[in-house]
């Protein structure tokens, strides 16, 4: 009886091992989900839908990718879910936003850190920009900084939330100018923060370049500076914050890409890491992204790993004093 039991157990184990191997070889044999930690219609959701639209092509993954929105608490809800509840089988991926989730894990109170996830590839980089309403008395970064120095803590500046790219940019500006802004995290993400600037509820705002570019096209805002190392091709006339004399680097640039959970079979990770950058670079994807005013930056798995590690160090320094 005992040996019989043993045999049964062994064969069960053998079946499950071979099942795992078969899983990796056939992967993917059904649609893959991508969890987006922000609401439908937000910039991350919108871009994720575009960059995954050719996944079903035979030369990419051969299976479609569908989007799963898990908005809440500045992205924490979605990533908490991904780190704890999702299965590590490669059929559920998540979109990451750097610096958001790294900053949140440094700040604590969440169930994930950079070590909980395995990056696959990066599709976009959306720098933070400083904006003011179209009728604002501020025309340059200098005007804004002068006002902040004269009225410490009274220069209301909207952004999408706490410990997201916009907040990091605001913190870096405060550090560089040795002045105090009043950072207002809005409910409803970048769109609500933008509305607060256009409606004049706040004096200034930090927002996504892609959204600010559109708002400027529509004649609603002025863009004063870009928190990046070089000027952006969408808005060539706007100086970087470095050029305006503020020591702000590209730590706040919002990198977006795909990741899987730690523990996903290596064969699955390898396949995704090889195929996903091809998907991002597909001509139909780049055309739509350009039409939508979304800056792209395709990075491979190794490049993303290095970028994550670099961000973690700079963010730890920046957030240490808070």
């Amino acid at each position: 009886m005992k040996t019989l039991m043993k045999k049964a157990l062994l064969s069960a184990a053998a079946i499950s091992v071979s099942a795992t191997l078969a899983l990796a070889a056939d992967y993917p044999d059904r649609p893959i989900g991508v969890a987006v930690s922000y609401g439908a219609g937000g910039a991350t959701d919108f871009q994720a839908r575009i960059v995954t639209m050719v996944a079903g092509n035979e030369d990419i993954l051969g299976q479609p990718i569908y989007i799963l929105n898990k908005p809440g608490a500045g992205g924490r809800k979605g990533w908490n879910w991904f780190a704890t509840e999702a299965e590590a089988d490669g059929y559920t991926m998540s979109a990451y936003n750097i610096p958001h989730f790294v900053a949140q894990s440094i700040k604590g109170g969440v169930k994930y850190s950079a070590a909980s996830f395995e990056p696959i590839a990066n599709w976009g980089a959306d720098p933070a920009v400083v904006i003011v309403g179209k009728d604002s008395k501020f025309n340059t970064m200098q005007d804004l900084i002068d006002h902040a120095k004269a009225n410490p803590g009274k220069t209301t500046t909207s952004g999408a939330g706490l410990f997201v790219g916009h907040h990091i940019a605001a913190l870096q500006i405060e550090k560089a100018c040795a002045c105090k802004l009043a950072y207002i995290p809005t409910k409803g993400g970048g769109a609500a923060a933008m509305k607060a600037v256009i409606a004049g509820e706040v004096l200034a705002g930090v927002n996504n370049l892609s959204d600010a570019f559109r708002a400027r096209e529509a004649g609603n805002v002025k863009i004063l500076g870009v928190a990046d190392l070089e000027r952006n091709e969408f808005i060539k006339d706007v100086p970087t914050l470095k050029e305006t004399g503020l020591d702000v680097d590209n730590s706040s640039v919002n990198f977006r890409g795909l990741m899987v959970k730690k523990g996903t079979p290596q064969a699955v990770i390898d396949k995704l890491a090889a195929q996903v950058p091809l998907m991002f670079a597909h001509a139909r994807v780049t055309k739509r992204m350009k039409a939508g005013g979304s800056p792209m930056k395709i990075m491979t798995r190794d490049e993303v790993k290095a970028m994550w590690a670099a961000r973690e160090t700079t963010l730890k320094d920046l957030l240490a004093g808070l």
Partner: protein
Amino acid sequence: MTNSRLQHVIPGALILAIALLVTYLSFTEEPAEAFLFPRIISIAFVGLAVWNFIRAAGGMAKVGRGLAMNDAKNLMPGLIVMLILVFWAAKALGFYISATLAFFTVYSIYDPAPHSSTKDWIKRAVITAAFMAAIYALFALLLKVQTPRGMFI
């Protein structure tokens, strides 16, 4: 104290206890900024819970019949199926298998038709299959919702 009054006092007391717990947590947990709004709510919550409790204790609460023993006895089997489905079967057996079983069980338990005739059992099986096929077509084929697969599908 009449039976109906007791029926209202117990939930009244429970709600009051929850309200007090919420208030206690709102005023002690950190960070204070995040609990500013819960504090405002909890004060109103306690106030209303006290008012409700006083009405219940004074026999002034008359709306609602309360729970009847007969109802509880009737709904117990269905409730147990629900709990097993949601807390265990859906994930362990897969959504479609467990939902089929749950549908069939609930339908069979509450179907007034005789449980001895084969014809009625076949009717139940056919209706279950038809309903689940419709659910499968809607959620899996049309909307492409990926449900837990469990041991089967």
